[in-house]
């Protein structure tokens, strides 16, 4: 079974802190994604990585950065957390084009609260 794990289920941080959210997948997937999910707004893509050290901005990249140094690990960084970044953060992974139909496998999510 595909397994995607996230470093924390719940996290509380203060405004201005630097926050690291980590995601690890064990299926050798090329693609990895970070989303945030808010009531009424659905899943919104923050960043996407299709290979090690490669990244692409999603729909809402402002205030976030990412790092992918190893294939299995994709980190989301909030350089200076703000209260409007309080949300559920979901990591996902998938095979690359030609190897699948792009079905994504999600981690359990990190509920981040910024106070």
């Amino acid at each position, binding site marked *: 079974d595909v397994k995607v794990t996230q470093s924390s289920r719940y996290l509380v941080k203060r405004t201005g802190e630097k926050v690291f959210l980590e995601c690890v997948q064990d299926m050798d997937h090329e693609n990895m994604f970070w989303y945030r999910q808010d009531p009424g707004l659905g*899943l919104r*893509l923050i960043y*996407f990585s299709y290979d090690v050290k490669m990244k692409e901005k999603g729909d809402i990249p402002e205030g976030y950065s990412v790092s992918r140094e190893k294939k299995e690990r994709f980190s989301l960084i909030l350089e200076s957390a703000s209260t409007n970044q309080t949300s559920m953060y979901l990591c996902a992974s998938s095979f690359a084009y030609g190897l699948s139909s*792009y079905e994504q496998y999600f981690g359990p*999510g990190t509920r981040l609260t910024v106070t």
Partner: protein
Amino acid sequence: SQKIEQNSEALNIQEGKTATLTCNYTNYSPAYLQWYRQDPGRGPVFLLLIRENEKEKRKERLKVTFDTTLKQSLFHITASQPADSATYLCALVNLSNTGKLIFGQGTTLQVKP
């Protein structure tokens, strides 16, 4: 602009009935359409996908249809059970998008015993 819509109102049905959820899209020509299930506080779980050249796909009690003329997919759960209560998301795949999906906001299904 591209848009994908699911009924934002919750769907309440009686156990044993068939639940039907709708996914409509505009300004888009997806190669595949996927359906996911999401339980509260958890990540979505992939259920089914249907390709643009397929009219219908089945998996156990689940059935998905895809009408590229109407730009609509219907997701059916037959003989529904309380355990089917969850939010169901549809997602579109455009092969030129390098693996990115566009998700609908989801429809919450409540199956009452």
